[in-house]
């Protein structure tokens, strides 16, 4: 029983990382209707900015995080304007998908050039004491608690923002029908820019949390968690903000349980098999109903 709870805790802590990345994926997909495969790499860049701000520029952790969020936000807006916007009207939606993959490789290779291939350990930015339960039989790391809280806060704020503010409602309008929204006076370009700005700012936070939980940073750090988070977003119903959160946590728990109770060799296979089954039964994902509302 104890080990079950302990694995559950490990699963939730891994899942919360997937969830926070998935929130960025789903946000962009829900509004701009495009899969931003470079999202994982924006996370990596965010983590590098935060790490370098602390170790090279000597900024305080709070300022470093701010620098990470601001620079990633600017980068997100630039990427959207330069690489995605010109292709938005392209005949095939594949064009922009391929470009996203291109941007992903571009970011990876730029980071490789600037920071080198060597893995760097991430410094402790968030120092929260661990929570010890059941007379020391279980410890929940501080970073796990922070990640879960951050997930819930971000999820709630995003949901509120999209439902209750003017730019949020503009996002809903763009998600429902770009052309109609334009006719109604919504600035589609600005709205999509804003979406990317928010998504990329979130990526910096996700990078910080990812690298605080698993403190090793290379130019490829973002790519696999990015793919897993994409799976989590699809699992939860892509486009749905609560779906991303639930999908992420479930994916983490399934992965850890698979590893613990079946085999550490085929944990990934199990996790993706579950995804296939869920999609066969419920093609729109767990929170698929929400997809009609588009965030």
């Amino acid at each position, binding site marked *: 029983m104890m080990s079950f709870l302990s694995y559950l805790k490990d699963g939730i802590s891994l899942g919360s990382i997937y969830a926070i990345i998935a929130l960025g994926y789903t946000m962009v997909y829900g509004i701009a209707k495009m899969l931003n495969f470079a999202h994982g790499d924006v996370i990596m860049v965010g983590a590098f900015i935060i790490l370098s701000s602390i170790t090279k520029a000597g900024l305080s952790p709070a300022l470093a995080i701010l620098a990470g969020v601001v620079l990633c936000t600017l980068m997100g807006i630039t990427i959207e304007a330069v690489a995605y916007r010109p292709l938005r009207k392209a005949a095939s939606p594949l064009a922009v998908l391929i470009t996203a993959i291109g941007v992903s490789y571009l970011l990876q290779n730029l980071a490789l050039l600037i920071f*080198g291939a060597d893995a760097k*350990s991430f410094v402790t930015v968030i120092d929260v004491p661990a929570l010890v339960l059941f007379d020391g039989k279980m410890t929940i790391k501080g970073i796990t608690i922070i990640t879960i809280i951050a997930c819930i806060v971000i999820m709630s704020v995003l949901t509120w923002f999209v439902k209750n503010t003017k730019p949020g409602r503009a996002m809903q309008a763009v998600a429902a029908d770009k052309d109609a929204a334009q006719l109604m006076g919504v600035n589609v370009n600005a709205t999509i820019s804003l979406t990317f700005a928010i998504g990329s700012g979130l990526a910096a936070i996700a990078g910080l949390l990812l690298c605080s939980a698993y403190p090793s940073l290379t130019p490829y750090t973002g790519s696999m*968690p990015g793919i897993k988070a994409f799976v989590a977003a699809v699992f939860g119903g892509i486009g749905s903000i609560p779906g991303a959160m639930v999908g992420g946590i479930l994916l983490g728990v399934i992965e*850890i349980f698979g*590893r613990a109770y079946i085999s550490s060799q085929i944990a990934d296979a199990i996790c993706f098999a579950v995804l296939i089954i869920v999609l066969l039964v419920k093609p729109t994902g767990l929170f698929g109903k929400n997809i009609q509302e588009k965030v």
Partner: protein
Amino acid sequence: MKNMKKALSLVAAASMMATAIAPVTVFADDTFKIGVIGPMTGDYAQYGLGVYKASLIAAEEINANGGINGYQVEILEAGDDQGDPEKSMNAYNSLMDDGMQILAGTVTSGACIAVKDLADMDQTFLFTPSGSAVDCITNVAGAFRMCFTDPMQGTKSAQFIAEQGLASKVAVIYDSMADYNVGIHDAFVAACGEYGLELVADEAYTTDSNTDFSVQLAKVQESGAELLFLPNYYNDDALILQQAADINLDVKIFGVDGMDGLLAVENFDTSLAEGCMLLTPFAASSTDEATVKFVTAYGEANNGETPNQFAADVYDVLYALKAAIEAANVTPDMDNAEICEALTAAMMDVTLEGLTGTTTWTEEGEPDKAPKAVVITNGVYEMM
């Protein structure tokens, strides 16, 4: 006319005599031309540069002490392959144009596998200091190696752990998606039985999910293992060590050469690596005479740099070549094929007291030497 012929034949005979007695004076080819190929630029440059610089040190030493069979050794300008097989083949061809007779290389495995076939076609003797993939020297004649193969490291680790009495219950966490890790793991597991080690936990992860080790570490903790064997590269090992510290896992850690580099990971808390052991043939901090002499010479020639394991490997390669050349009476005027054939035969009788241990070679070209390991103490390697 007759006298003229006689005179000519006398001159010819005299010159033949001279050839037999002192070839140095007659032939322009009076040095052994040895080539080095490795990554001199790019991500793995520290490996290639270490090898090239150390080969210069060894050649200088050999030359200062009268050369080999009275001939000087010349290390040709290094062939830079950046660790890439195709570039390596180009580097090989350009070294051949420079008159290379023996190849001390290549440094990295992938490149070595590509170059060995070229060397085999030309019948150029190949002696890799550090190509550890099994295939680096298989299926060709005249190819030898200085370092252990990857699987051999697994076997030797088990031997070392058992002989030093480090543990009787052992656990493994390894990357089941990478050849290097799987090869060592499989050999280690097979050797555990042979050396009386009990394998209580055998946990895998994949290259795609190499961040979260909580489950694997929990299982190691439950299994009651005394020692955790990590046949992985240092970046994965760094994460494993960090997460092991999070759950206060109290086991000894043993790694292989892939773990070398752990202490150099930027921002890594080196106190986590304290007490970690790893199988490596060379520690620059050793105090034996040969190592001190080599480290000093290397440092003096290279602004105080410390030589790595690859540098020590090639240093031994050159002395092994020297021993074989002397035993086979090879001279620089022989062509590559003759040199190759003579050295291949002579290597069987070479016993080298080198920096990386006392080594003999098998017919397959594999080194046979006792395993050596270092333990990380106060942030530096210390020979065990």
